[in-house]
Every structure is written in structure tokens, then in C-alpha cells.
């Protein structure tokens, strides 16, 4: 167990490959007060089938995230599906009555299919660490929707192991909190294992969003598609770190990252660190990013239909959450997002 002092800096969201320190992108520093997160009490399916080590140790850089759990009691939640079983679960991490910490284990056995809808609520600090094991020919879909209050603070840390021909899909909606730290580390271990990751985010006021996605291709013919689309306004800040790591032996693999960021204010701070590490010849890795204001062509298109720049901005912002809702295909999630982003009247 790590001994820490109160109000210490935790180093989290570490990139596997460092770059210049002056950029302040190699990791995130989080002010952390000891015993800040108490145990969640409303644990769903709580049992002790908890996989501390899902096989990803040694592949990713160490960080201080464990410290939060070492210093607190935390809930243990598991969702597991037996062979060829289909399962759906909905879990809400609610910080309305105080800060919480929890570990969630999602375990999909061979040929099974698991969908977990995860929501976050309240204005307190929430820390959730997820371990996901996607078995052979299995499929796991995590849909994470942040419904926290605008002054809420959230850390989610996700370690995933995908076996042969397994598919891991993670969809995340971040409409803006005081601070959100997202880490997702995926080990595509089995041949033809697959990751689909889509993140939609909106940042305004002085909200902060800090993302670190690391995908290690180990098996042959593995693939990943990582997309992040968002808009920043006011003093919002965001950092997107995305690392596609083709390990030696991952021949025939494919990895693609793309990011589109709309910038609506001159006071925003947008950082992007898209990394491709390649230790294998027979792979194909791509990254593309488009960052900036609304294009002149788009504004002209709107203007020719009588829509002002301000209205166009609102429409484009709404289109980000609408696209995410369509992606989830889930009515309840759609309702929650509409309620969070536009208020009840539009539901």
C-alpha cells in the first residue's frame, strides 16, 4: 500500500512514450485528499469475483490511481456472463450524497455478450475503476454517460483484456464536469480481437477533460478504431492522448484514431497527443485530427438558410450529443442525455 499525505499530487493518465516536459502532456496531476472517496453503498450484483490482475500488468505504465482505492473502502461490483449467455446491466454511480469510490469487474465468458450502461450522477467526487475481460468470441459493450452536475469531479480508469475474436466496444459521453479524468487501456491480446471506442464531449465554462487511451495490439490481425468528437467553449480545457501500440508479432493489425474538435472561444485550451508506436512491419496505423473553428463553408451553408453563427454553434453542439445518442441506440440513455444537455422541456 502506498502511503500518501493529504493533499498530495497523484500522477495519473501516464503516456507509454514520453515527450517534451514543457508541453505538460506526459501525465495528469490530480490534487487528492486522503479518504476523499467513501464506499459506494448501492452496489449492484456485489460479490467478490474480482479480477485484480487481468493480464495487463507490465504492458502499461504505472500510475497512482490505485492510491485512491488503497486509501478508501470501496465497493466491488461485478457483472459476468457465462458461456454463450447474453446479459445487460445498468449501473449508476451516484455522488449526490458524497464522494464515492468503486471497482467494477465485467467478465464475459466465451461466446457471451454483455452490455453495461453506466451512468454517473451528483456533484461529489467519483472514482471508478473497471476491469473488463472479453473472452474468446465474446462481446462487451460499455456505454458510459456522465450525468454529473457541472461542478462534479470524476475519474474513470478502465483496463480491458480482449481474447481471440472478441470485441470490446466503449462509448462515452462527457457533457462537461469541473474535472473529468478518463483512462482506458485495452490489450488486444487474442488474434482478431477488436476495439471500437467513441467519445463525445462538450466542454464549457472552466471545465476540464483529461483523456488517456492506450491500445496495445498483441495478437495478429487485431483492429482498433478510436474516435473522439467534441466542442469546447468559454475557458474549457481538454487533452486527448491516444496511443496505438503495435507490438512485435501483431502482424496484419490495423489501428485508426481520429479526432474532431470544434473551438468556439478564444479562451479554450486544447491539447492533442496522438501517438503511434510500431514494432511490427506488417501493420497499418493512421491518425487524423481536425481542430478549429467552424469552417467558412459551413457558416455560409447555415447563413444561406437564415441561421446565425450563434445558432449554428448551438446546432453543431447538439449534433455531437445527437450523434452519440444514435450510436447507443438506447432510449433511456437518449432521454438522460437530452435531460442533461437541454433540460427536461426538450425530452
Amino acid at each position: 500500500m502506498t502511503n500518501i499525505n493529504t493533499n498530495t499530487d497523484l500522477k495519473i493518465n501516464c503516456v507509454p512514450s514520453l515527450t517534451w516536459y514543457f508541453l505538460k502532456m506526459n501525465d495528469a496531476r490530480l490534487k487528492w485528499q486522503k479518504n476523499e472517496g467513501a464506499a459506494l453503498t448501492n452496489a449492484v450484483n456485489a460479490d467478490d469475483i474480482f479480477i485484480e490482475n487481468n493480464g495487463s500488468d507490465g504492458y502499461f505504465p504505472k500510475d497512482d490511481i490505485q492510491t485512491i482505492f488503497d486509501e478508501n473502502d470501496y465497493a466491488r461490483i461485478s457483472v459476468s456472463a457465462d458461456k454463450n449467455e447474453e446479459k445487460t446491466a445498468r449501473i449508476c454511480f451516484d455522488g449526490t450524497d458524497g464522494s464515492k469510490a468503486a471497482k467494477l469487474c465485467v467478465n464475459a465468458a466465451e461466446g457471451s455478450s454483455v452490455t453495461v450502461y453506466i451512468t454517473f450522477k451528483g456533484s461529489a467526487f467519483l472514482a471508478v475503476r473497471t476491469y473488463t475481460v472479453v473472452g474468446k468470441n465474446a462481446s462487451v459493450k460499455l456505454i458510459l454517460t456522465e450525468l454529473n452536475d457541472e461542478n462534479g469531479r470524476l475519474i474513470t480508469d478502465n483496463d480491458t483484456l480482449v481474447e481471440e475474436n472478441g470485441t470490446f466496444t466503449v462509448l462515452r459521453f462527457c457533457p462537461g464536469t469541473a474535472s473529468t479524468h478518463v483512462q482506458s487501456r485495452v490489450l488486444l491480446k487474442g488474434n482478431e480481437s477488436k476495439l471500437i471506442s467513441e467519445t463525445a464531449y462538450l466542454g464549457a465554462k472552466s471545465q476540464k477533460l483529461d483523456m488517456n487511451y492506450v491500445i496495445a495490439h498483441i495478437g495478429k490481425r487485431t483492429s482498433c478504431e478510436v474516435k473522439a468528437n467534441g466542442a469546447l467553449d468559454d475557458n474549457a480545457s481538454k487533452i486527448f492522448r491516444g496511443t496505438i501500440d503495435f507490438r512485435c508479432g501483431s502482424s496484419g493489425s490495423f489501428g485508426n484514431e481520429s479526432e474532431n474538435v470544434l473551438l468556439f472561444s478564444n479562451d479554450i485550451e486544447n491539447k492533442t497527443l496522438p501517438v503511434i508506436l510500431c514494432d511490427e512491419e506488417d501493420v497499418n496505423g493512421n491518425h487524423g485530427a481536425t481542430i478549429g473553428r467552424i469552417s467558412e463553408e459551413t457558416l455560409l451553408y447555415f447563413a444561406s438558410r437564415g441561421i446565425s453563427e450563434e445558432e449554428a454553434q448551438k446546432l453543431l453542439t447538439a449534433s455531437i450529443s445527437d450523434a452519440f445518442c444514435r450510436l447507443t441506440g438506447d432510449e433511456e440513455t437518449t432521454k438522460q442525455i437530452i435531460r442533461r444537455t437541454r433540460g427536461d422541456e426538450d425530452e
Partner: protein
Amino acid sequence: MAETTKVTDIDRSIYDIRNAEDNDYRMRSGLTPEIVEKLSAEKNDPEWMLEFRLKSLEVYNKLDIPDWGPPIDELDMDNISTYVRPKSDMKASWEDVPEDIKDTFERLGIPQAERKSLAGVGAQYDSELVYHNVRDEVSKQGVVYTDLESALRGPFAELIRKKFMHLVPPNDHKFAALHGAVWSGGSFVYVPEGVHLDIPLQSYFRLNAKGAGQFEHTLIIVEDNAYLHFIEGCSAPKYNVANLHAGCVELYVGKNSTLRYSTIENWSKNMYNLNTKRAVVEEGGRVEWVSGSFGSHTSYLYPMTILKGKGSSMEFTGITFAGNGQDLDTGAKVVHNAPDTSSVINTRSISKDGGISTYRSSVVINPQAKGAKASVSCESLMLDSISRSDTIPAMDIRTGECDVGHEARIGRISDDQVFYLMSRGMSEEDARATIVSGFAENVSKELPLEYAVEMNNLIRLEMHGSM
């Protein structure tokens, strides 16, 4: 008969010719205040320069070796001689340069290039310039091209004092501090307002001494409404001990001026190339970097541009070819500090025979750079499964009024392309070499013809026997 063996090193016969070390003076290895003082005395430095060197040494001793790049643990400054003076002072005629040194530059083609296509040439051998000349018609336009040490004592002394290591201060990083402490040789170029030099100037750096370092400083000032193309070449014979190159280039580009800075770096594969290059560009000015990195054991090389004036721009075009035993970490940095600035970074890297190539960049757009545009494109080619290629580009954007595009791609030579060329009668080896040359075309087309030919020859030599 088809070749099946791997060639582990390129044919560097031209570059690998070593001359016997017949130096006038060689500083003992290591880095101490006494050595720095001795070097300063040897150089007949002004007093402020001695103080500058000693302060830089203090900074050097305080800074850590970077932990984010290729390993440089085997570089031991206790085994590096920081100053080696050849048996020749600076000459203005090749005829006066000692025979062995002149032969070296003849083989590298420098005097021929001077006759054919250059406005002036500087040739550095180990720690000192041995040749410097500039055409009369260029001098008559007011262009100054001389060695930095002479310039330090001439009419530009005050200007140099103001600009020297102003863009790259010693506390920038450990090897900038090292450079500040032990710099020696290099060129000073001054292009007056309104002067447009149609033909390039060139500096060529040759490090012959075993276990030595080269720390030349290049300072170029291009005043307003002017144009200059400066070419830099470097090479060294290979030894079984580490050599070090920690040069520094500072470029000042005036209003509405353009400076094109081309480099073909072909250091030997025992060289640690820890070079620092930086430019500041005033309103409407432009800097164009063309960079080919072929040699070195280990490289840290990221030319940086500060776009200071409104409407200033930069373009970086680079290629890196990492072969057996090489770990080359290259790229570019740009800081947009003014409105309507623009930058384009376009790179290619190739890894082969266990070589490691890393593309690293940063694009920073500060709040005042409204209307800035930046475009980054980096492509990497892996030629076998024992090599490695990484891309680590970073973007930091602090204004909404900007447009930034980035694309990166890593892959291998397409079998379809090889098959297509082979179906038209090419051998597989030639087909692959042709595809790699095509991949590198973005750089070769930016170079003067003779350098483009040299670069393509280097690629062909690297590809030869790679089947």
C-alpha cells in the same frame, strides 16, 4: 545471381576516409571549468564570452539528461575532447589548405560545388574553419559570410553579442548548455535589407578526430525584404568510440524576408547528434527547413520556429532514414505567437535493418495567434519486422480562431506496388528502392539538384542488398 545477404551498413567509402590525426592542438578529454577557461583562451574570446561559457557550464552541470528520447547513457563526456584544432588556420583559397584536408573536401565535392553553384563556402574541419570564401559580387551587395570568431571581433561584434544564444539560451536543455560552454567554429551570415541572394551559401562540417566533439555555432541574420538559401552538410569517418556533435543554429528572419535552410546530415554511425536549431520570423517573413537525416548513431534533432510577426510562416520538410544500429529521433517544433501565422510540417521516415526512427513534433498556437493555420503530415515506412518506427506529435492550441490539421500514417511497402513494378521488368530490389525513392520525393524535390541526386544515391545504397 540474386543477392540474398543483408548489407549491414551502407557503402560510405567517400565519407569513411580517415586522415591521420595530425592536429595542431587537442584539448584533453573531459569537461571542467579549467578546460573551458583553456578553450576560451585558445579562442582568444572577449571577456563576456568567457563568463558566458562558465555560466553555461554551471547550467550544464545542473540539468538532467533527457529521459524522453533515445538512450545516450554511453555518451561519456569524460571521453570526449571538446576542442581539436587542425594544423591550418582559415584560408580563402583551397590551394592554401593542407593537402590531406583539401583532399577530404575534394572527395566530398565541396570545391566543385562552390565553383558550379554556390555563392560562398565555409568548411570546418574538427573544431575550426579551414576555408571560407564568398564571391566578390556577393560581398559587394553587403552580404557578410565569415567565421563566427572573426565576426566576434569585427564590426558586427555588438550585434552578435546581442543575438548569440538568445534564441537558444543555455538553460534550454542540457546540450544547449554544453554548447554554450564549449562552442567553437561555425559561421556568421548577415544579409542586408533588400538583398536577394539567388545562389546559396554553404557550410560543410567534417569531424575527423576520434573521440572528439564538434560544437559549431551558426548565426544567420537576414534583414527585411531579403532572401537567402543556406545549405549545411556534415559527415565524419566511423570510429569505434563515440563522437559528439552538439552544434547550434540561430536564424533571425526579418520582415517579409525568406530564409531557406537545407541540411543533408550524414554523420558516421558512431556519432551522437544532439544538435539544436531555432529560427524567429518577423512580420510577413518565412523560414523553410529542408532536412535529410541519414547518419548518426543517435539523433535528437527538432528544428524549431517561432512565428513572431503577423503573417509569418514556416515550412518544414524532412526525411529520416534509420538503418542498422541507428536510433534517430527527429521532427520539428513550431510556436505561433502572432495573428495569421501559418505552418506546414511534412515528414517521411524509413526504418530498416533494426533501425529505430521516431518522429516527434510540437505545434503550439498561443492565444494571440488568431487566424493561425497549421498542417502536420508524417508518414513512416517499415521495411522489415526487426525495425521500429514511432510517431509522437503534440498539439497545444490556445485560441478558437485557428485551423489545425494533422495526419499520421505508418505502414509497409505495398505488395501490390512491388508486384506492379516487377510485372514491368524490375527486380524486386529495384522495385522496392524505387518505391522508397518515391516515398522520399517530397524532400528530394525541395533540394538543389546535386543534393537531391546525393540523397537518392544514399537511399539506393541503403536499399542495396536489403532483400
